[in-house]
């Protein structure tokens, strides 16, 4: 395998890390993350957290505003059979997506979510449904406005 292909593979997340072939997308699924809302994001890397908290949804419009979402892509290498799962955690904002982090799982840690998908989308209230905003326990939420004050040379 050429050294250049190996280098290029570093920048292609859908290329196999073992044989540098382009992998096929086996599954794609959108999930809502009802426990995480805008302004309250904290990073999680444990697959157990996602297995417990992700709820499959059919389309983005089912996710209420301010609620985080995850896009799951499962790749499989047609050459060596290597599998890789990509989980993109993002905040859907109208047509835009504010991406928080992209996680990779190489040992089938999130396979349970893909099988759960086949069970349908019964677990999540619709964005326009009566209980979409109350959460599971009719929870109490607190948010506040943000203020960003920049100096004369405050660039980011």
């Amino acid at each position: 395998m050429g050294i250049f292909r190996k280098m290029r593979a570093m920048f292609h997340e859908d290329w196999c890390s073992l044989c540098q072939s382009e992998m096929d997308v086996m599954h794609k699924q959108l999930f809502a993350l009802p426990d995480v809302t805008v302004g309250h994001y904290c990073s999680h890397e444990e697959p157990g957290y996602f297995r417990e908290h992700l709820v499959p949804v059919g389309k983005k419009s089912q996710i209420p505003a301010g609620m985080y979402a995850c896009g799951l892509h499962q790749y499989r290498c047609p050459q060596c059979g290597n599998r890789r799962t990509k989980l993109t955690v993002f905040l859907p904002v109208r047509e835009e997506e504010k991406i928080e982090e992209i996680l990779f799982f190489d040992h089938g840690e999130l396979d349970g979510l893909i099988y759960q998908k086949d069970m349908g989308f019964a677990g999540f209230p619709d964005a326009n449904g009566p209980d979409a905003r109350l959460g599971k326990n009719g929870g109490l939420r607190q948010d506040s406005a943000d203020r960003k004050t920049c100096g004369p040379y405050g660039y980011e």
Partner: protein
Amino acid sequence: MNSEPLKKKNLLYLLSYICVPIAVTAVCFLLGYLFFRDGGMGAAILFMVPPALSLLWWMFAGKMIFKGKRKNMMRELERSGFTPNHTFDSDGSTVVVDIEHGKLAMLFFWNPFQSYVLPASRISKIWTDDGKTGMGPLAGSSRVSFLFTIDGVRIRVNTFTSNKRWRMDSDYILTGISKADMMAEVLEEAKGRSV
């Protein structure tokens, strides 16, 4: 619940907040001029302390009064059986929504001695303002807010403010829009449940 019309500003409070320190400082200057013409400790105190205290008052007192009153309001709401399902604190107001009972509580920065608890059915219009100006690649915003009207009074609650204009796809603006959209949905739902 309050049935009186909504008042975002208490003019007496606003004027006294601005004018009382000025008046006190002026009186102190006058006393200093009349009684300590030759200088000394008295003159130093009368000429330096009131302006410094006035500045501190203008900078911090409003926020402290508002915070204190907000705490009081939350305690009172809890006692009255109001469920604060969603609370949003902004620089100019606090909005508390009881989605289950379709109620809304509000406190304004410039009217902190009067909190309002209203049925959400009194809201006539709810919308989000992303503050977008400019076109194409020059589009940007420095303020995002959600707005609603109650009895014809328009209430704007900022979710993001800045002294700089940000691109519409910047994290600050997207977060502000998301918060504003979320609160608009919360208010819509409370309105839908209100009797």
